[in-house]
């Protein structure tokens, strides 16, 4: 398995040497056929599941930027997701804006909210920051729940699906192209950020705030930037969720349970590991779906998984694979050296 992943990674690296976008374009083209493959192999419903996976990938990758790259403990990400969803839904419903306008505006509003959620991070750290962001996230949900203009208890109904001209994007497979494109772009930009000077500043803050500050990094600025970038992902995911047929939002979709599930995705995949976040989102969504019949034991299974992960696999699936690849490369290099000396 590890050798397969190693070979796969080196194949992608060689493609990237031709052009850095080539692996992404190839992946995108291959994914265009996924709905047909899924429908033929598993059935139409699993395209809907794939759509939900893509939404969670966006959320998990976004959360990884602030939590994994920058090391800020946030539990308010679900609140940003809610803001993106409700804003886009209301703009589309009350002002008749098409998805292509309401979604960017929702992202803009979520960015501002991200800035507010990030403000405590300037002064707070660890558990205190977690509590502050949890409070902010939950207050968003409560505000939606008690404000009739935001859907209140009945929710926001009949949110229009995205359209291109007269064509309505409402079937599972057509919506897949929309959410998959968003997910691919999200993952790509996550790598771009990670490999840029901004990404390095984030990592420096994660490793040691004082050392980063001494090195000339504007710590408050980069902390806030991490929250804002992560809010872009949450806002986009929220807008896509709101307009996904049947186009219905309710404040119950944004509770602490959803936030914990999102954290599980990131922890399972590996904090700070982009592909780990992707894998975590897919694994959790699929396992949740496949264990629906065992609803009685589901919370127990998820709770125990979280505890075991933190104890035995703190770096998640991504971390374990990364470690195995490094170990393998080390052994190979060692063997080559041994052969050379003998």
């Amino acid at each position, binding site marked *: 398995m590890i050798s397969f992943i190693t070979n796969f990674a080196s194949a992608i690296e060689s493609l990237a040497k031709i052009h850095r976008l080539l692996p992404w374009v190839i992946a995108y083209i291959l994914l265009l056929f996924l709905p047909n493959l899924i429908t033929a192999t*598993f059935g*139409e*419903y699993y395209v809907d599941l794939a759509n*939900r996976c893509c939404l969670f990938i966006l959320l998990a990758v976004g959360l990884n930027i602030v939590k994994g790259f920058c090391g800020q403990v946030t539990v308010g990400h679900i609140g940003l997701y809610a803001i993106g969803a409700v804003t886009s839904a209301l703009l589309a419903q009350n002002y008749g804006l098409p998805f292509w306008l309401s979604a960017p505006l929702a992202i803009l509003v979520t960015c501002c909210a991200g800035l507010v959620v990030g403000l405590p991070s300037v002064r707070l750290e660890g558990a205190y920051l977690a509590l502050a962001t949890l409070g902010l996230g939950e207050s968003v949900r409560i505000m939606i729940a008690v404000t009739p203009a935001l859907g209140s*208890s009945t929710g926001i109904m009949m949110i229009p699906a995205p359209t291109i001209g007269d064509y309505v994007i409402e079937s599972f497979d057509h919506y897949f192209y929309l959410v998959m494109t968003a997910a691919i772009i999200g993952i790509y930009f996550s790598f771009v950020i990670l490999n840029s000077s901004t990404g390095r500043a984030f990592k420096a803050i994660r490793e040691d705030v004082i050392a980063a500050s001494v090195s000339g990094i504007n710590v408050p600025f980069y902390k806030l930037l991490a929250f804002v970038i992560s809010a872009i992902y949450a806002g986009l995911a929220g807008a896509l969720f709101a307009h996904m047929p049947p*186009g219905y939002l*309710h404040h119950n*979709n944004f509770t602490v349970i959803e936030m914990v599930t999102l954290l599980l995705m990131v922890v399972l995949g590996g904090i700070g590991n982009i592909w780990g976040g992707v894998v975590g989102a897919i694994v959790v969504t699929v396992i949740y*779906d496949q264990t*629906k019949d065992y609803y009685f034991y589901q919370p127990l299974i998820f709770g125990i998984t979280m505890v075991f992960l933190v104890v035995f696999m703190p770096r998640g699936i991504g971390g374990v694979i990364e470690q195995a690849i490094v170990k393998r490369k080390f052994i190979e290099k060692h063997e080559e050296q041994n052969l050379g000396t003998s």
Partner: protein
Amino acid sequence: MRNWTKFLAGLAAGGFVLSATAALADEIRVGITMRMVSENGQKYGQMVMDEIGLINEAGGINGHQIKATLMNDECKSDKGVANANKLIFQEKVHLLIGSTCSSVSLPIVDVTAKAQVPQIIPHSTNSQITQKGSAWVFRVPVSGRFYAGVNAKYVGENIGKKIAYICAADAASQNDCDAMQAQMKSQHGADPAYVAQVQEKEVDFRTHMQKIKSAGVDGIMVAALAETMSRALIQSYEAGIGTDVRRIGSSSASNAPVPKISGDAVKGVFYAAAYSNADTRPIAKLFNQMVKDRYGIHAPDHDFSQAYDLIRIVEIALNNSDLKLTNSSLAADRTAIRDAIANVKNYQGLASGPISFCAAATPQCRDGNKTPVLIAYKKGGEAFETEVLARVNMPEDFGL
């Protein structure tokens, strides 16, 4: 290369296993999505499954077994929609039952309308469910618009017009609260004396109760889910509001945890519901005993009776449907079941009144039970007792 072969083989095997679970011919597939998170919620779902099991044991429907799949939607719309999609597109159900919560039933109505699958609702009361104009939806419980009408009539004529409202943020309670205020205004010209919007699981009502006490109201309507309502009722007495101020419950006041948690505070609380366990009809007595024996419930609430009535209506409809039950006849079978449910007239079960449906996609046709019953608690605690205050047949277009 070997890895790819293994991967593709695994994919094909997985696909075979998954696809084998769906599309089995010669059985009637029924999908159920309900709120299976509370003790009572699980028992409602279990009752539906048990009753279907009994139908199967008795030979099924015209020789066909019913395959029921029950899923938990946790009272969350996204989970409910995912369940509905899975049941419709993967399990390829002929009929969808659900959901418990109005906020879940509301979006599922759009899913079933688009996929053209008959949906029958066991518990959700929000009026808008049948006002969406779907030709595929049927509601067994009494709609919130009827509850408000009968409550407001009784309150205005027997209690007074100065009413305070405590409205929790869940869809059903909010709907009950809004509808009651609208009915008090239209029937008696009365504006609310006090309105408090509270969280779905609010724990502290003391500030509101003090304000209500100083407002000198005739009655307090507490529209909330069971546990929240109980807390509000207890705290209303702790705040010193006397028994001369009548407490009015929303439809969830009928849920068994309310008298159990509230104890003496529930005495005198009245509410509109679809079933009274104080019903003296033989069918009701048998039902009460059955629920007690099977689920250990001292007195079943109307969510139990509605789940039971729903299965009886489904049984009647399925027996009257000409089903082919082949893979190619799925759409025709779904239409046949829808038409058969629409043809159910004057079903006399446990419900407070006869349940009738018709073909038009209107609330008049699809809100089956139009007879709310007004019930008051005589005694709280584990061995609670109720009495019927009134039974009112409402005009079918009331509240529209």
